[in-house]
Structures are given as C-alpha cells and as structure tokens.
C-alpha cells in the first residue's frame, strides 16, 4: 500500500474530522462491524451484521429515491418553470409519493411481442442494483460505511459501470427500434465518458496515494489554508477545481442527465431503452436512474467535497446534503440546458474531455512530484 502523500507538505493539525483517520486504514466494514458488535460478534453476528447493514443502506437510498422521483423532481422543475406542481395530497403534496407508488405498481405489466425474455426481465433489475452496489463502499459519515476495501474507488466505478450492461440488455431485448437506438446511444456515451471520468478520479488518487475511500476522505480533512480564522479544508474541489469541473461534466454524461440525456431523449427516440417498459419494470428503471444520480453525487462528494465532512451538523447529514445538492444541480441543468446532439456528444467526449482529463492527470502528477 503506497504511503499517502501530504500535498501541503507540512504536517498540519488534524481538524475536527467527521469520520475516519488520516492515512490508509486497514480494510474494514464499520457499519457491519458495529451491528455485529451489538449482536455479540461471532460468525453469525458478522453475517447478520453485514446483511442488516446492507439492508439499511439500500433502504435509505430507496427512500431518498422515492422522495426525489415522484416529488422533489416535480417540485424543482416546477420552481424553475414558474409552476406549483403537486400540492393536493398531504403536506406539500408529499403523499403523492404513496399515490404514485400505488399507481405505478398496480399497472398492467405489458411484455411486448417478441421480447427476448430473460434479458428483458433481468435488465430492470441490473440497473438499480448496480447503483446500490456502488454505495457499499461510500463513507457516509458517523460510521455509516458498509465496507472499506483498499480498492474502494475502483469498486465504485466498476459497480456503476455495470449499469451499461442493463441498458444494452433493455435496448436489445425490447424488440423496439427506439429502444435499440437508445441502448446503442447509452453504450457509445458511457464509453466516451467513463474514461475521462476515471482518469480525472485518478488525478485525485495521485494526491491521496490510496484508493481506499476512508483514506481519500481523511486526506481532505486537513487544512488547505486559513482565511481570517476560518479553516478551509483541503477538499480536492478547492485543491484542483479544474478536475472538479471536469469530473462534474463527465459525471452528468455518465448518469445520462441533461445536457447529456441522449439515451432517453424523449423528443427524439421517445424514451430510448425504456420505451417498452411499464409498471414494476418501469419503476425499477426509474429507481435505478435516481440511485445512479445519487451514486454519482456520492462519488463526487467523496472525491472532491470532503465526503461527509462539514461544520456543525453531523457528518451523515452533510453527506445527504451534498448528494442532494448534486441532485438539485442535475435538475437545474435539466430545466436550463439544451441537450447536445449524439455526434456532438461523442465529439466532446473523445476530442475534448479525454484530452483535458489526460492533461489534468499529467499536470497533477508533475505538480505532486515536484512538491513531494
């Protein structure tokens, strides 16, 4: 395991770290261990602890999705377009979530003629679960962290990339030409943007010297600069804002949000890969998309925004705030930015982002090399 590099050079007093310790901690599973400890340990305790922890995290994400999908998305878009949106059921229209869930789940599940059955059924499961898998390694503060392997960052990217498989399965198995176009578009897009995304993340890894999520977070608790008594932490968004913007843009493409929502593009190819999906399958797709947005936000918060760190409030709350901020940002972009054309998107990816991300990587390596 590489020794973490100190970007600031001198050892600064560690601030009020919300979570984790500086340097690479040994692989652990904080949340599962805690539950296991409560249960008295042992093999049974470990297994039950791991399952229970995963259950809690997954449900937390699903609850957030439930709030985001039927309610927050409508409210945010409405605010951008001078409308009111849902307000009839429950306080602030919140109970629309229940109504929508019942409505969606009680619809008839229509399987199109000629659909490629196993693939058609598996695709809507792959999408949300690939995203949920990514949350296994995200540190959420206050010890809520399912697993902390040495290769945490790689795992998160790998898990979220499985989604592409679900999309191409859905596109191909639906026996619909719009779906096929959408599936192909999503693959072309993910290929073009995943590389800049990972390369940009690698520039952060050059600073931290570790792929372990807790290590990356711990690194960012150190002080970058003191401005009039206010301590600015060493978040990588402050250390390397260029990489942050690059990552943000690539992330939008990775999760397929405006201006890069080409795989769905309702005005062009109806709904892309999910054209033929309805009822429960549609709900799964919808869930998957939103969990992907949150996962994108979580990875970004961990890499660039200090993970769960923040003043006053507990770390976990800060984590939630950060991923919701990212969600808000995607909805803002959705309301304000036209989508680019598929060829323009590919061009931006291969000719622009890829070059910039490599430039960023090389420059970061040189700077870190000189300082260290």
């Amino acid at each position: 395991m590489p020794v973490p590099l100190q970007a600031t050079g001198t050892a600064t007093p560690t601030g009020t770290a919300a979570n984790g310790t500086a340097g690479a901690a040994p692989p652990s599973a904080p949340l599962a261990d805690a539950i296991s400890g409560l249960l008295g340990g042992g093999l049974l305790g470990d297994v039950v602890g791991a399952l229970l922890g995963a259950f809690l995290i997954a449900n937390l994400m699903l609850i957030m999705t439930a709030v985001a999908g039927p309610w927050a998305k409508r409210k945010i878009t409405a605010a951008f377009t001078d409308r009111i949106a849902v307000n009839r059921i429950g306080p602030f229209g919140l109970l629309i979530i229940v109504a929508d869930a019942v409505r969606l789940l009680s619809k008839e599940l229509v399987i199109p003629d000629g659909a490629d059955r196993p693939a058609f059924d598996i695709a809507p499961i792959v999408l949300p679960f690939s995203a949920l898998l990514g949350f296994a390694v995200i540190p959420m503060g206050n010890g809520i962290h399912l697993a902390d392997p040495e290769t945490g960052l790689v795992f998160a990217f790998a898990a979220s990339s499985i989604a592409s498989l679900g999309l191409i399965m859905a596109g191909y198995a639906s026996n619909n030409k719009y779906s096929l176009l959408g599936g192909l578009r999503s693959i072309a897009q993910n290929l073009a943007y995943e590389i800049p995304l990972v390369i940009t993340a690698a520039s952060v890894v050059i600073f931290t010297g570790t792929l372990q999520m807790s290590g990356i977070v711990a690194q960012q608790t150190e002080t970058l600069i003191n401005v009039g008594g206010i301590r600015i932490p060493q978040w990588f968004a402050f250390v390397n804002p260029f990489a942050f913007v690059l990552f943000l843009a690539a992330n939008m493409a990775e999760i397929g949000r405006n201006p890069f929502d080409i795989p769905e593009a309702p005005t062009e190819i109806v709904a892309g890969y999910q054209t033929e999906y309805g009822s429960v399958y549609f709900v799964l797709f919808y869930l998957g998309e939103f969990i992907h947005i949150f996962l994108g936000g979580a990875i970004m918060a961990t890499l660039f925004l200090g993970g769960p760190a923040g003043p006053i409030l507990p770390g976990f709350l800060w984590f939630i705030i950060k991923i919701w901020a990212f969600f808000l940002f995607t909805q803002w972009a959705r309301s304000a930015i036209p989508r680019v054309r598929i060829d323009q998107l590919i061009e931006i990816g291969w000719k622009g982002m890829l070059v910039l991300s490599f430039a960023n990587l090389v420059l970061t390596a040189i700077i870190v090399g000189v300082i260290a």
Partner: protein
Amino acid sequence: MAETTGTRPSAATAADDPTRELLDIVPDDAVTGTDDHLNAPALVVRADRVQATLSALRDAGLDHCACVTAQAYDDRYESIYHLRDYDDPTREASVVVPVPTDDPTSESAAPVFRTADWHEREAYDLVGIEYDDHPNLRRILLPETWQGHPLGPDFDGEEPQIVPFREHANPLADDRRGADTMFLNVGPHHPSTHGVLHLKVSLDGEQVAAVEPDIGYIHRCEEQMCQQGTYRHQIMPYPDRWDYISAGILNEWAYARAAEDLADLEVPEYAQVIRTMSAELCRIASHMLAVGTFALDVYGDFTAIFMYAVRDREKVQNILEDLTGQRLMFNYLRLGGVVWDLPEPREEFFEKIRDFLDDLPESLEEYHDLITSNEILQSRTVGTGVLPPEVAKSYGATGPVARGSGIDYDLRRDDPYGYYDELDWDVITDDGCDNFSRLFVRLREVEESAKIIEQCVDILEDWPEDERTIQSNVPRTLKPEADKEIYRAVEAAKGELGIYIRSDGTDKPGRFKIRSPCFSNLQTLPEMSEGEYVPDMIASLGSLDIVLGEVDR
C-alpha cells in the same frame, strides 16, 4: 368557368393586356382558350402540354406555384395551377387544364414545380384526376385502401368502404431501403411530431437516409364541409379549425378576403383596423407556441422556455377572449366586417393591450437569453435543416419558413389587404436558411406584430365615436353570380393561406379549396433532413411549425 372555345391563341384579340402578355410567354400549341378569374388571367391549356406551359411561365418570373385546385364538372375535370411571382405576388396567373371525364389524365407539373407533387396527389385522391409523369401518384389524405374519390362526380358516400384484410398484412415486410438501413416509424404517436404526423424514416446508423411524411390522420373533409355551408354565416366557423394554434382570426380572414372579393363586398375601414389588430394578436400567440415547442424539441424535457412562451401566449389569449368571447375558436370575423365592436369599457381593453405590449420587449429579451443566445442551442440549430431559397421556392414554401431562407415574401406588404399598408412595420428575413434562422425570424416577427398592434390601438383610440361602423351592409342571403372564380390569400402565421372559391349561382360555393401553408411547407422536410441526424430532423420539423389540422384539413 373556362370558356373552352377551341380558338387559337391568336384569335384571343379581345383579351386584355395581362392575358396577352401570358400568351406571348407560353408555347403557341399549348393554349386552347382563355378565361378570366377574378384574381388573375387564366389560360386554358391542353392536358399534354402542362409542363411546357408551366416551365415557360416559371422562367418568366411566375415562380410560385401557390396551389393546385382540382374540381369535377358534369362533363369534365379541371386542374387549376395558381401561379404567382415571389417578387410581386400581385402578378398572378391561372393555368386551367381540362380533361374529359372518361379519360381524366393530365400531364403532371411535378417536374416543373416540386410542390405539385403533393398537390396533385391530393387532386388524385379527392377528385380522381390521374397525372402522367407524376413521380409518386398515390393517395395522400385518405387511406391507401380507400375506394372511390369523394369529390368526384360518381362517389357514393353511403357505400361502405370494404377493406380486405390482406391490405393490412405486415406493411413493413421487406422494407429495407438500401443496404444497412433501418426503417423506423416516427409517429403517428411520437412526442414531437406536433400532432398525428407519421414519418417513414430510413436510418443509416443515426443519420436519416430517407424520410417520407405520411399525412391525412386528421383529414376532416373541411373543403367539402365549406361547400355545404352558406357564404354568409355557415362557413366562417370552419377556418378556426384549420390552424387551431390560436391563429383563428388569420384563417377567418383568408375566407373573408376571398368571399368579399368574390361577392364584391366593402369592409368599413374601422373594421379593417380591428381585423388587423386581432390578426396580429393571433400571430403573436401562434409564434409564441411555435418558439416554445421548437425549444422543447431541442431542449428536451418540459423546460422553462416552453412555460415562458405559454405564459406570454396566455396574455394574448386573454385579450382575444375579451374581444371575441372565445379562446381558440374565435368566429369573430364576418363577411363585410367583424361581429361586434371592441369590448366596453374601451379604455380598459386598450390598457390591457398596452400593458401586454409594454412587457413584451422584456419577455423577448428573456427568450433571446434562453434560446437564441444559448451556445448549445446555436450549435444544434445553426447550419442544420438547410433549405436553400431555390428549393424553398420550388416547394412553394411561404411564411417564416420562406423568410428564414432569405425569400422576401410577405403578403401583408406585397399584396396588401386590411390596414397593413397604412402602418409602419418591416418584413423580417434572414439569410441563414437553417433551423436557427426560422426560429429567429419568428421571434423578430413578434416584435413587428407588436408594432402593428400598437399603431392599431392608437388609431382605434382616436376613432370618432359616430363613425365606428363594424360591418358594411351585406345581403342576408349571399348569392354571387355563377361561374366566378377567385383565389385569394392572406399571410397567416404559417405562411400563405389561400382560398379558391368557384360560385355556382347558389348561396353555397361550388368548389371551396384551401391552400394550406403547412401542407406546402411540410413537403420540404425530406429536403432539409436527409443526410442529417435524427435529432436534426426533429428540430427541422419543429422549425417548420406545422399544424396537422391545417395540413390534413
């Protein structure tokens, strides 16, 4: 009615100068007689010399084939080509091609004017005239399986339409146009076909290899319904239902203008000012929706710009509601004027319009911020959906589509009617020929319409109270004398909306033909989108701003 006298052209010495001039242009052996339509001199041409005649007239400057009217008489069929000059639309000519009932075959004009392609298909579909040398003579409005021609002489509407089942057996079997292409049905149920339009698209990867619009899904026999209504009152409600994107008064004016000229009715000046003002309000409402939906097609989701556009359209609709009592189907114009005067208290009404006009520049600034100055939108629209002016003319494109291709053609100025020639405003053109130009022209035209409305409000405010005549004295039963023919057009929101009426001596038209601007404009879609990406085709379709109610009629 054509006087098929059979005389040689040289014998037509009695003809007046415009006819003489036309006769000098066309080949001698083509013309069998002359006629005089109320709007233009007419030449009666042999059915096998149509192309020679039309190309001679086109080369002589009559380069706009505005409309092709087909009709059935007891003893013959007739195709009428209404030609105009793009530089001076008051220079008009009609080419009448009679064919016998037992052998209704006429030479196609499609090789000369590409717009004739669809118009002749419609003539074949509805009336039953066959066109030799036509590239693609199929039904256009009615289903392929339809039997008989509804506007033809021997059509029996009571007879059930029997469609054999095999006609519907897999219409897409073996439809692979060219190697490695994929056939895709865009519509009739697609989020951005702006109604029930069906595009048969062949894709080469993401690029459009061929596109063929399939129309007729909301064909409602509007022409026939108008032929069954009396001039005075029963026809006027129908125009509202052609272009139903709140452009009702513009449509009504097209009928009013044709019928008033046919029956030689006066319109009081006061009513003309009200017509001008309300028509321009309709134009703003229509353009607002065009801009909003275009942005929706390009932006993607249900975005702010659409809501902003609808918000401003709402203000216009409130004004129009105050004026007409209706929000969409206004039915406000009457032959010889308008149905009632401005609402009382007038000051309040004027104040409302002024408030709207005062806020408009700020709103337009917002649109320019959100749309035209947006870099992504520019990269999506500039240089895509290119429609060169020559092609646009050949397809008979008019309105913002033509003006976005740099064609300086606006009937409000070039063929003045209403109160337009008394007012100070400009015709907007743009040389870009692309999707962006058409969008930009519409936004600028809203400014010009606002200028017109403002001047109209000033004039109406100062109008002396005892001279507010809203209708001239029109006979209760209007019976124009038989066999008068007229083609008259106005500048509707989408372009040249023309009406051809032939009177038959009764109180109902003998033939009522609608020249829809959207019908002609939509024909340019393949020209604009072949070779481009699917999203550009969608954007081009949005930039054409078609209303299927007007395309299908």
